[in-house]
């Protein structure tokens, strides 16, 4: 058990509303990642963090922002949700710094109507 929890696990919202997904870890790992998973695309990196207040963009960052004010929490925010952001979102922590092994949460399913 990698000690990662995501909340909420399921959310239905309307287009144009803000949404925040939370990832909480108990392992004190430096690196945390947010991915989205869609059929035919595998997992695509949205943003990642390499420390408190240190974040960087991934390959599909448009429309998303992140914040990391504490080591244990990494928040993903959709300022104004769109239907194209309907997806399953996964948070991950990087266990071994050099090899990049990731440990995932159980996912957050977001539906934007």
């Amino acid at each position, binding site marked *: 058990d990698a000690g990662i929890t995501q909340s909420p696990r399921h959310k239905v919202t309307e287009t144009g509303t803000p949404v925040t997904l939370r990832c909480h870890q108990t392992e004190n790992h430096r690196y945390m990642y947010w*991915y989205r998973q869609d059929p035919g695309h595998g997992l695509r990196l949205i943003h990642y963090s390499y420390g408190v207040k240190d974040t960087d963009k991934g390959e599909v960052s448009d429309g998303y922002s992140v914040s990391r004010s504490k080591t244990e929490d990494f928040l993903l925010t959709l300022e104004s949700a769109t239907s194209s952001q309907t997806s399953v979102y996964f948070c991950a922590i990087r266990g071994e710094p050099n*090899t990049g092994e990731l440990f995932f949460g159980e996912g957050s399913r977001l539906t934007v109507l």
Partner: protein
Amino acid sequence: TQLLEQSPQFLSIQEGENLTVYCNSSSVFSSLQWYRQEPGEGPVLLVTVVTGGEVKKLKRLTFQFGDARKDSSLHITAAQPGDTGLYLCAGRVYNNNDMRFGAGTRLTVKP
């Protein structure tokens, strides 16, 4: 275009058959991982390969990292229905901190 190209995208075989899944890129990776994902769950790490040419075995699964560290393969011997799932390769691009995934191979093993 994804950084890591996996093939095939779908694979349906009978129990007892062998199979190979490929993961290719034009980029060099510091390390490459294979994950397996069940419906409704997050991916779970199977193996990490680090050295070019490295071969690792996990029971009936054999993983190989290409000599140039740009590609990898997963070979399953005598597949069983319990092997059914989504197999994902992922890599840490050399001198980078972001971790990229392939689109995955959905394997179905029929009894």
